[in-house]
């Protein structure tokens, strides 16, 4: 009886192919605005969910933080201070207002503001994550290209197997585990590098290695596959036909064309590395947001947990946004511009 209705909904997945790939400025701006808008909405949802969750969590968060032995007056006083006795909508909007002004809440135990923690600890976290990401890009892309060039057309099978085996193994070693092993080998056994802190260049070596190795390996695998695909493209043969030196062919013709796919995945890796830094910081006692985060979790200080979780979420969303924009700028015919 409803056959005709169902048929009506049929043509849904057939989308018209884009006609004309000329990318005008207006297309780019509409992409930009759409993409920023999406990030803001996601961030709003993140903040709202975080707010609701903290209110829904069983029992009284202040009681949970201060412990069962705290006097009822102190608990009540802290609840008043935190505005927890206001109507829920008032609380929500004052919370949103606060987040907009960089106020991510306060510690339920000490009353110290999350903003302070962020200001003092964010630089160390960002330094660790971004240096690691830089290392990932600098190692994985040339390595992947090199192996692709050397194993092109089924040559040097042994080398290809070694590459696949080594990168396959290390890309599945979690960063914090690698961190533990690096500490054991280089700090405890060989006594070569410091085990904790970030006060010297040498102190960066192990944390950066721990955070970047797995990502570098998986990105190198992808870079090799992308480079192999690109090397098979006709325009690479054209470049050879122009009798250009190999170096020029790889840098000017292969690299730009494999970069879109590599950066897309690289962006998700960077986002994962920002959150992965939480555990690595814990291993190396790094003075970043991660150690504060873990400490807050252990002491059940959910005010800090919530605030820092939002900050991490914002960083991840921002990274994703920047990566999308960079890709759209590099790849003139990016599908991102047309559908997103």
């Amino acid at each position: 009886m409803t056959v005709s209705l169902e048929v009506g909904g049929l043509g849904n997945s057939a989308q018209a192919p884009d006609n004309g790939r000329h990318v005008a400025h207006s297309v780019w701006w509409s992409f930009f605005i759409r993409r920023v808008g999406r990030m803001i909405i996601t961030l709003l949802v993140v903040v709202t969910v975080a707010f609701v969750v903290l209110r829904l969590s069983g029992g009284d968060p202040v009681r949970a933080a201060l412990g069962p032995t705290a006097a009822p007056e102190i608990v009540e006083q802290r609840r008043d201070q935190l505005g927890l006795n206001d109507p829920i909508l008032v609380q929500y909007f004052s919370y949103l207002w606060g987040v907009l002004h960089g106020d991510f809440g306060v510690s339920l135990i000490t009353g110290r503001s999350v903003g302070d923690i962020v200001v003092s600890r964010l630089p160390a976290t960002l330094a660790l994550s971004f240096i690691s990401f830089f290392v990932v890009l600098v190692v994985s892309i040339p390595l992947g290209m090199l192996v692709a060039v050397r194993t092109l057309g089924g040559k040097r099978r042994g080398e290809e197997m070694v590459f696949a085996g080594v990168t396959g193994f290390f890309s599945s070693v979690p960063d914090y585990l690698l961190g533990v092993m690096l500490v054991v080998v280089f700090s405890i056994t060989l006594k070569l590098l410091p085990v904790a802190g970030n006060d010297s260049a040498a102190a960066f070596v192990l944390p950066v290695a721990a955070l970047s190795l797995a990502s570098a390996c998986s990105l190198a695998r992808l870079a090799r596959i992308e480079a192999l695909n690109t090397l098979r493209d006709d325009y690479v043969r054209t470049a050879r036909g122009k009798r250009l030196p190999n170096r020029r062919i790889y840098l000017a013709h292969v690299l730009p064309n494999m970069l879109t796919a590599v950066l897309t995945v690289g962006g998700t890796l960077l986002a994962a590395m920002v959150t992965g830094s939480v555990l690595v910081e814990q291993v190396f006692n790094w003075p970043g947001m991660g150690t504060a985060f873990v400490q807050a979790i252990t002491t059940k200080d959910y005010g800090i947990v919530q605030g820092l979780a939002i900050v991490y979420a914002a960083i991840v969303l921002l990274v994703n946004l920047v990566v999308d924009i960079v890709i759209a700028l590099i790849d003139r015919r990016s599908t991102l511009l047309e559908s997103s």
Partner: protein
Amino acid sequence: MNHQLRDFLRSPLAIVSLTMLLGLVVLAAIGPVVWRDAADATNTDAMFAPVSAEHWFGADALGRDVLARVMVATRLSLVMALVATAVGALAGIVLGALPALGGKRIQRFASAVINMGLAFPVLLVAMLVVILLGTSKQTAVIALAITMVPSFARLAQTLSARVGGSEYLAAARLLGISPLRQFTRYVLPNIAEPIVVNVTLSIGAGLLALSSLSFLGVGVQAPEYDWGRLLNDGFDQVYTSPMAAIGPGLVIVLAGLAFGIFGEAVASSLRSKSGASIVRVDALGEPPRAVPDDADDSNAASAAAPSTPQPHTPEVLLDVCGLTVAFPSAAGWRTPVKDVSFRICAGEIVGLVGESGSGKSVTAMAIAGLADPSAVVSARRLTFRGQDLLSLSERQKRLVLSDMGVVFQDSLTALNPAMRVGAQLAEIPRIQQGKGHADSASAAVAALAGVEIADPERRAKQFPHEFSGGMRQRALIAMAEMSEPALLIADEPTTALDVTVQHAVLSLLRRECAQRGQAALVISHDIAVLGQLCQRIIVMYRGEIVEDFDTALLRTPQDLRHPYARALVESVPDMNTDKSVPLATISETMFGGEAA
């Protein structure tokens, strides 16, 4: 047993990973039974004991054997990962695949929800679940399951969108088959395989994620323990007995690896089913090479000599003798070019004609040093301007070959999509002749103007996709002419173009060659096109040269020696062709025996 499964079970990846997985399952089954007592036995003498024959991984703060505890923890670690993946995958697949049955609006909404979920950082989800439910093993499992939902949903969504738009589902709808039955009978079977691969990989990733949650202290709580918890405990004593941390760590890595390799093995077996199998070159034996000199040169010589002598004997520019090209394939070595010999003199325009697969393009690319990297190119003699191309080093060869320009087939893919057209031309003088940026750029603009591209300054700044097909082909000709080569090789320069543009491009080619006194080798499947352009035509059939004749002979095809060449020339319609009879065609049987 079915064939594909047997092949799969024989692959080394599958054998290794299945053995490891089997080991894990056995450990999970017997671990708590066999090692429970040893794992729980406290021993004050062995507190923080280092590695010994008795304690392979050392002992913990209460003197309990860490290895025994790792064995016992196998079951809990594995079960948690399996449950989380099962819940996450199921919820994700339902969320992703069901909207395919609904209308456009439902799909849009589901898509928006999934996108939002994918944008949600995993850590945030986990922490929110922890805040909501407290720290426990259930919390960890639920948090992991929730973080898996969006990616499974996205996968199922992409896959079922493909199915949802398919003809057979439309037919099922018309037949009034119930949505549930549509889902179970039509949608699910078509999305099952990639999902199986992803589930396997997710279990491995889940193991690692759960252990990291326990390591953080938000997962399994004492007195229970999984691998992550043991690692956490071990890390506290990393200075006294590092093995207590490394031991559980190694087991976590190995377990994660087992699932990872298994997923890879399944995926590669699915890939090989779809035909993209990898050929093992070393298993094929020696590739077929050019027949050596002493075999018989008479045959080659007769093929090499043009059937009509040139009025005067000019310099021989290109000398090809016994060229053979072999490719590895699943069925052994394939030789699309067999013992091909010909010469091109300075200023001579030669056509190379043949049907698709006759080896004409492979011949041209092998001569130009642009054969596929897997190809094995050999020849008795291959000289260009008197230089032996086979014995030159890579660098010298590049120098010699810069005097041989190549115009490629299919102008869209032959240009670099990420580089402005002007830059693609300018890099030739800039890199080869070391000219400055400005000089090279103006040379590129001049070259574009030379092939009659209007408004060359503006065009030079555009990307290839902003050009029309005819313009791209002109740009490719301009590119090949940038270094003013002595020989131009044009591989089907007009195939992708419509007839009027074809004409313009051909007359451009002819004019360029005449102006510069260039020789050219023009490849086409269209003998009529070559007749207008060339002085000599070479006919290739099944990888061999069967005819090499003066273009004048096109009028008297009966004088051609090889039946294929004769048939080819006779099949070209002209003004005198009788329109009442069907056009002449060439059948395989006419000379199949002779050519094979």
